[in-house]
């Protein structure tokens, strides 16, 4: 992908995909190895939304690995966006909304970076981002939508959205450009060693992201056998041939939630909010030191979050299945 082209041309898109090994093969690996699949400067799409199924362990590993200059896109961006900016991992975040969450107020880290021109928050409407991924997933260069019309959200996008006339009705609608990320990071409840993934509950834009991307790095709460997948193929949501790496990471979304597994770790989110409330730069740096660079591995990070905290979040996560 030429990083300055808004829409990859179809010949290149097809050639890039034809070069991928789509054979049925095992892809189980480690966070460290999976991180090598992301190159500096890539466009990385992040699955989940806000505090849900964020592929936090993979983001955490990419920060540790020192990747730089990523463009990151996500439907809605929460604390992981702060860490992406504060660590220097991403210089641009493409999203419809960016803050820790409504109960914690506006992200001071986002504000610091954007208001001082240190990084960019490129705003699209939620549906427009979804339709950009969907166009990318479908292999068409654009799709028509009926939002982002008449607003400044469209105006500041300049030539990135364009009116288009329907050849049947003559009416004008808005064309949004396809988005084909270089890498998609997606966290799921279950996947097999080939990368066939099942999602419980909220899917967000993950399926479109997987189909649109050049490769998917899948983290999963649990690796199950391919036999289990084949027993209920109508529950598979992401097909193996989109996936390049499968990493088993229990609690891989902490401190965010994973549907049916654990709720957000509110204590940890409050602690983070308190840290950056005083000073977004020093606070974020301290959080990175303590929770990203400090731990010797993901389990060590989880230990710092606290086993009691995790068990409480798990109990809360599972109640969704109690009714």
């Amino acid at each position, binding site marked *: 992908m030429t990083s300055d082209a808004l829409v990859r041309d179809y010949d290149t898109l097809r050639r890039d995909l034809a070069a991928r090994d789509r054979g049925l093969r095992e892809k189980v690996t480690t966070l460290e190895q999976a991180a090598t699949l992301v190159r500096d400067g890539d466009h990385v799409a992040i699955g989940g*939304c*806000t*505090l*849900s199924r964020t592929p936090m362990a993979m983001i955490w590993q990419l920060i540790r690995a020192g990747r730089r200059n990523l463009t990151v896109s996500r*439907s*809605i961006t929460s604390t992981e966006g702060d860490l992406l900016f504060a660590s220097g991992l991403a210089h641009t975040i493409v*999203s*419809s*909304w*960016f*803050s820790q*969450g*409504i*109960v914690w107020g*506006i*992200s001071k880290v*986002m*504000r610091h970076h*954007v*208001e001082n*021109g240190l990084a960019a*928050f490129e*705003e699209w*409407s*939620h*549906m*427009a981002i*979804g*339709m950009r*991924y*969907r166009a990318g997933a479908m292999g068409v260069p654009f799709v028509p*939508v*009926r*939002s*982002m*019309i*008449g*607003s*400044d*959200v469209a105006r*500041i996008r300049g030539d990135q959205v364009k*009116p288009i006339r329907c050849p049947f009705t003559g009416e*004008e609608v*808005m064309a949004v450009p396809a988005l084909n990320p270089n890498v998609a990071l997606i966290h799921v409840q279950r996947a097999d060693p080939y990368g066939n993934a099942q999602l419980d*509950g*909220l*899917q*967000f*834009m*993950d*399926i*479109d992201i997987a189909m649109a991307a050049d490769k998917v790095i899948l983290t999963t709460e649990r690796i199950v056998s391919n036999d289990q997948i084949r027993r209920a193929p109508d529950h598979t949501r992401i097909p193996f041939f989109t996936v390049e790496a499968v990493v088993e990471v229990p609690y891989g979304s902490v401190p965010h*939630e994973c*549907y*049916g597994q654990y*709720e*957000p770790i509110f204590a940890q989110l409050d602690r983070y909010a308190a840290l950056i409330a005083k000073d977004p730069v020093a606070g974020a740096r301290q959080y990175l030191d303590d929770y990203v660079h400090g731990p010797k591995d993901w389990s060590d990070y989880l230990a710092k979050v606290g086993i009691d905290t995790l068990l409480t979040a798990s109990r809360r*996560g599972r109640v*969704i299945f109690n*009714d």
Partner: protein
Amino acid sequence: MTEQTTSSAYTASELIAIMAGRLLVDGQIVFAGVGIPLLAATLAQRNVAPKLTILFEGGVIGPFIRPGELPPSTNEQRCTRRANMVLPSTDVLLLLQRGYVDVGFMGGAQIDRYGNLNSSFIGPAEKPSIRLPGTGGGNDISSLTNMIVAMKHEKRRFVEKVDFITSPGWIDGRDSRARCGLPTGGMWRVVTDLAVMGFDAETREMEVLALHPGVSFAQVQDNTGFPLRRAREVGVTAPPRREELALIRELDPDRLYTA
């Protein structure tokens, strides 16, 4: 008749939630944000509108939120409690475009005379003094359905012209919204702690429809950064009833959204 309350008995947020909830009609499909909109919609659902359906941006149709377990956003599992359906977030937004949704219901940071909302930038977009969190689904919702906005009534929030149109209202008034290419929807009601407002059918300027108990028109105007119109008959809303307050407090016992 049920017992009424005096204004010292509730917070501004509780008042807004209750007054906004009363605008919903049974059988409607309501695209709701978390916070006040969710509380208001749930209140309506439990009190007078059992056939009302709530939609969440995260991809949820028809949930029943559990009291005391309010979701932190529209995108966590608490949003799906006892829902009829969960679907991809792009597809729940497309329901707006297809026309399945009666009302969009959200909070607002800044609104102008024509009901345009800003949740993106204070100051110029190129060099903002405050970068706000952005549109989320707000632009989609307000482009594609009839809107109710619930917000605090403050002069800095009710401005002559928003710094940035994140979610389109009536744009520059009259038929400018349709001329922009938005043939459907539009700002319908603004509910604050002082009053309920609508928009003149012709000019599309904001007008006061009803004042909350004990509030004068002058008081509303004083807290508004542009001249407000008055409807031909400005009513007075009935004060919150005890059971409305009780339900709000049951839903949000920790006052996460109603402090």
